[in-house]
Each structure stands twice: as C-alpha cells, then as structure tokens.
C-alpha cells in the first residue's frame, strides 16, 4: 500500500502511528498515575512486597527487550530484501512476545491463587488494570507480527513493503518502553 508524505516529509501512516503512540503515552500515564496514587493505601493484603516475583519479572523484561532487538533486525532484513532473515526475526519476535505473555498468564494465575484479585484491594485493582492493558497491547502486537510473518511466507513482504514492518515495529518498541517504566515503577520501586 502506498503511503503519501505529510508536509513534514514523513509517510502519513508512520506519522499516524506516532500520533497514536503520543496518545498512548497519555493513556498509560493515566494508568501509572492511578497505580502510584493508590500505592500503599490498601487496607488488606496481599501487598506488593508479599507477592511480586522479581526474578520471574526480570526474565520477562529481558525477553521483551530482546524481542525489540529481533524486531529491529526483522525491519533491517525486510529493507535489504533478505526474506529468510526477515522470517527468522519476525518468528523470533512472535516467540519472545508469546513467552512474555506466558509469564504474565502464569503470574496472574499465581496471584489469583494467592488471593489477589481485581476486587481484593486497591493494589490488586490498579495492578491488574495496568499490567492487563499492557498485556493486551502485547497480544495485539503478537497478532500483528503473525500477519506480517504470513505475508512474508506468501512472498508479499519485500523491500517495497518495509513501511508496513516499520510501523508495526514502532508499535512493538512502544509496548517495550511502556514495560520498561512499569517494571521500574511497579516491581522495583515498592
């Protein structure tokens, strides 16, 4: 699909993605603000200190960071017309994104069995809403990557379609930077 340039000389689809990302900053900013505003105000447990699993989340964070590396290498491969490498790196993004989501499902399930639910206390409500929305964004990103991989397998993701991968990559990296903030604010600064 052709993408016209805006008056700034940026492809319109890329500009649209950046505008979307700017709006998403405010969306996640509001969720993080709510989490921090209610932090330490739960009347009953479990509290973050009692329940958060730092080693598991550290591995998840590393996995998501490496998925960003795979994404940028996939874009590079598409731009240079290396279809085999493009498929390899897109596949890696999907696998790493899936691993991150698996870790989150495990964590949510564990918390539920430890008595932390959306209704249990302020920590549960704000934690699940914040990390749940982030997980939903990762899920959308993984589905997006699967569609790109299918396009590549059908031979429809050549260098002329590199903007498709670049725009998807911007979304993926944004999801990554949001997690960088969540990991610090929610997990490490308790």
């Amino acid at each position, binding site marked *: 699909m*052709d*993408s*016209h*340039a*805006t*008056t*700034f*000389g*940026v*492809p*319109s689809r*890329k*500009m649209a993605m*950046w*505008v979307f*990302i*700017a709006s*998403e*900053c*405010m969306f*996640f*900013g*509001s969720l*993080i*603000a*709510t989490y*921090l*505003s*209610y*932090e*330490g105000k739960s009347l009953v447990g479990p509290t973050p200190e009692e329940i958060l699993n*730092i*080693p598991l989340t*550290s591995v998840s*964070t590393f996995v998501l*960071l*490496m998925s*960003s*590396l795979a*994404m*940028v*290498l996939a874009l*590079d491969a598409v*731009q240079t017309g290396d279809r085999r490498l493009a498929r390899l790196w897109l596949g890696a993004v999907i696998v790493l994104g899936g691993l991150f989501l698996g870790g989150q499902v495990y964590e949510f399930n564990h918390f539920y069995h430890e008595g932390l639910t959306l209704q249990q206390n302020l920590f549960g409500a704000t934690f699940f809403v914040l990390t749940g929305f982030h997980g939903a964004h990762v899920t959308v990103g993984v589905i997006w990557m699967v569609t790109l991989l299918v396009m590549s397998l059908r031979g429809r993701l050549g260098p002329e379609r*590199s*903007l498709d*991968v*670049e725009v998807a*990559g*911007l979304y993926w*990296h944004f999801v*990554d*930077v949001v997690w*960088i*903030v969540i*990991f*610090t*604010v929610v997990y*490490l*600064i308790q």
Partner: protein
Amino acid sequence: MAEHAAPESSKGHASKSTYWLIAVILGIITMLEVAVFYVPLLHSVIVPILLVLSAAKFALVAMFFMHLKFDKPVLTTLFAGGIIVATVIILSMMLLFGTIGPGAHM
C-alpha cells in the same frame, strides 16, 4: 495536511552491530536494576538510581530501535509531547492523592 509523493520507509538508521550493542547495554542495565533492588545498602537511594537507569533504557530504545535519533525531529517532538503530558498527569495525581508533596503518607 498537504500530500506529496510517496516516500519509502526511513533507511537512515543504525547498523546491525549497533543494534546488538544496544541490546547488550539494555541487558546490562536491567541486571544493574535488579542488583540495586537486592542491595540493602542502596535502599535509601534506590528511587533516583532506578529512575535514571529506567530513563536510560527508555532513551536507548526510543533513539535507536525506534530510530528517533535518525528520523525527522518532528517525531521526537510528538513523542516528547506525549511523555510530558503523561508525566504531568502522574505528578498531579500523586500530589492530589498525597503520595508526594507536603503531608505525603506512603
């Protein structure tokens, strides 16, 4: 907004070796963050240390993986605008709820 000829996606970006180097740095910073969390001696200064390390990771991903370092400045302005508004929202809410500022009770 006026429309011009269709451009290709941005090709001005870092080399593959730079991407790998950035990934290694990101991994090292993450390890440092976790290490800081587990060192009791640093607990009095843990917040500023973690915020600086987190900001460094954020900046590296935005500059190199999102290509802001090599792309049009208008995109950096757009992203920075969103981050500034988000930061103001966070600080305002924390101030309103007494998490920071006079009479803070965490």
